[in-house]
């Protein structure tokens, strides 16, 4: 498969670019909700518009009413989300939760997919139990109880946990903390008794919760896939989420770079455009190179994932690590080359810096994934 978008993908990219620039623009969404201290961190009206555009069900199979597309296409939408810092549940609902639900029974899919596709529902995914991404260790327990399970434990930094109508929770049904096996995924509805959310606002204005499960009673039909067989599904969910956040990171990096290069062409100091100074030109050209490479490997990893290649795990981590490094560089250089104005809230470049920080941490930062690349390569 060639490493550029085909005709349909190009059309999707154009559509998403226009939509996000108009409806998802920073002033209209991110700043708007942030300045109102919105407890969701995003606007539900926009989420409905996502549905009208056909984005919400992009990864959902056609038999379930979705678009039946792949991670490359989800990435195309996410790149535009990243460029405009558009806050939405797309990554958690349409990418992570949808990937989990695709592994569920027909009954489960018909329970949740329609709400996701129509934009009436928001889903979250709860994996991590601490401040760093460590999905290898899962402590949260689900014990057999009657026909169902009793869920106990806590999850940290569940993005949009409080806004979610349902949370996909990875819990341990057997074995000990660091075991590969014995993981089960559950679809836990919002109104389940014994669930407690402690909401926190993150640096990028997104909302997360620390969620406690205190003997939450779940029916047997809350299980996604097989009991004790959740690790494989979890890995699919993680791959989709990681390549998705890499794609969003490419958008963040690209937009931060474009803003910066534009600024270099406008700002005059010492009687010259600052873009004439070679010290800045070389840094900009270096940044451009890194952003192009990050995009290339993100598309590559997405294609491998969609094609079911055995190299997908490795390349997804390469992409997440590369984008993590690159987007970090883009926002740091962006703020620095904007000079003092880059430090002001009024200018958008700082918002990119904040979003990058949150995205980079999400599902494993560049260090986590470089380490994973080493392990997957056998060292």
């Amino acid at each position, binding site marked *: 498969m060639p490493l*550029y978008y085909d005709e349909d993908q190009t059309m999707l990219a154009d559509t998403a670019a226009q939509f996000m620039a108009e409806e998802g623009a920073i002033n209209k969404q991110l700043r708007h909700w942030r300045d109102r201290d919105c407890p969701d961190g995003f606007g539900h009206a926009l989420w409905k518009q996502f549905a009208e555009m056909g984005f919400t069900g992009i990864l959902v199979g056609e038999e379930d009413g979705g678009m039946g597309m792949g991670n490359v296409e989800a990435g195309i939408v996410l790149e535009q989300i990243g460029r405009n810092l558009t806050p939405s549940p797309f990554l958690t609902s349409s990418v992570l939760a949808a990937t989990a639900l695709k592994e569920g029974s027909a009954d489960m899919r018909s329970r949740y997919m329609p709400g996701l596709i129509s934009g009436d529902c928001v889903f979250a995914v709860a994996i991590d139990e601490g401040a760093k991404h460590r999905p290898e260790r899962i402590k949260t327990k689900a014990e057999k109880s009657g026909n169902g399970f009793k869920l106990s434990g806590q999850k940290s930094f569940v993005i949009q946990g409080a806004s979610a109508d349902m949370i996909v929770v990875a819990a341990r049904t057997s074995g000990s903390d660091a075991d590969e096996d014995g993981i089960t995924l559950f679809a836990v509805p919002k109104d389940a008794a014994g669930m407690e959310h402690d909401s926190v606002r993150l640096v990028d204005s997104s909302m997360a919760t620390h969620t406690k499960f205190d003997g939450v009673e779940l029916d047997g039909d809350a299980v996604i896939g097989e009991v004790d067989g959740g690790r494989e599904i979890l890995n699919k969910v993680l791959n989709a989420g990681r390549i998705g956040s890499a794609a969003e990171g490419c958008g963040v990096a690209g937009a931060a770079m474009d803003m910066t290069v534009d600024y270099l062409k406008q700002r005059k100091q010492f009687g010259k455009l600052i873009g*004439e100074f070679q010290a800045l030109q070389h840094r900009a050209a270096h940044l*451009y190179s890194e952003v192009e490479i990050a995009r290339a490997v993100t598309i*590559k990893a997405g294609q491998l994932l969609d094609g079911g290649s055995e190299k997908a795990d490795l390349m997804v981590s390469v992409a997440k690590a590369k984008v993590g490094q690159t987007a970090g560089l883009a926002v740091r250089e962006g703020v620095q080359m904007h000079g003092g104005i880059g430090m002001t809230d009024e200018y958008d470049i700082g918002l990119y810096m904040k979003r990058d920080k949150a995205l980079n941490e999400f599902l494993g930062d560049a260090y986590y994934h470089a380490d994973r*690349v080493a392990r997957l390569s056998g*060292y």
Partner: protein
Amino acid sequence: MADLDIFREETRSWLEANCPEEMRQPVRDEEDVYWGGRKATFKNDAQKAWFDICVEKGYTVPAWPKEYGGAGLSAAEAKVLRQEMARINARPPLSSFGIWMLGPALLQFGTEGQKQRFLNEIARGEIRWCQGYSEPGSGSDLVSMQTFGEDKGDHWEVSGQKIWTSYADQADWIFCLVRTDKANKYQGITFMLFDMENEGVSTKPILLISGNSPFCETFFDNVKVPKSYGEDCPGQVGEVNRGWDVAKYLLGHEREMISGAGGGGLTSAIGAAMQRHVAKDGGDLDPVLRSELAMFDVDALAYAAMGEKFLDEMKTGRGHPAQPNMMKYVGTELNKRRHELMMSAGGSRSLEWDSEETSGGKPSRNWLRTKANSIEGGTSEVMLNVVSKRILDLPGA
């Protein structure tokens, strides 16, 4: 698609039947590379057999048209051939500046007569070429070059000095930038082709920090360069005084080649191999070195994806024409980093300068050689200048 699958099958069995076992191993040293030319000798029978069969098949230059010694493969077919050769580690049957640089320029700018003669000679490995661009006072600022050719009617009389001419002492012919109009900077340069055995041409090797000297100073002392080598075969490529266009085009190819985007081997991960290397000595990777290797592998694998994207885009005319400059910049910086890490993982062993164990100090000599990657063919700084001006459109000073 189906046609391509058939081609792959055919290629695979052809390689199976024709590529000798000895030629299915990574290139280890200079001797393993066959450069062709009047002074060339084969290292062994296998190298000769592999070369001969490839010439016959047009596989020394697979993508060139058949009438010029190629196999006339489409870009997609050529990619399949590359992949299949890489799969069995097949060595290139012939390496040469004629293939990488002059050939593409002739295909673009040459006359029919020049193509017939020179491309076929290159494809059959008969003439080894070298590149006469740089001068002592003109490196990055190449267009300031001074070597002068005076018009003597049926020939030019060329005098001046070139430097850094790779393998000039082993080359048969040179493609050379010569100033033919002193008043005109860009439009006063002619791209000439001539025999290094002409009277007045002399070369002197330059010893590099790697202890090798494949580079030369090249001197021209009233060298007679014919204006024509026969019907429809002028002694210059492109028009007189318009050689800069040819030179620039050719530099693009050179940069792609040095960047490894053309399928070179500098884009793979090395961490696992370094781990094995260290383990052989009974040790472990230091955690900090391990992490640097991991970050390198991330960058190398990501760059490999970029290389693939770059080639895909080139084929369809997408992508920016200055993209090779970006590829060259990143690829060469990566290659230097690779060798720094390999030296570190090798420890004191890799310091050995001429031991048998290190095949004559290969690790350190290679490490030192890579330092030229970000200088030869245009420095990293010059690449960044091009990217910032031509792609990012930043204002000139």
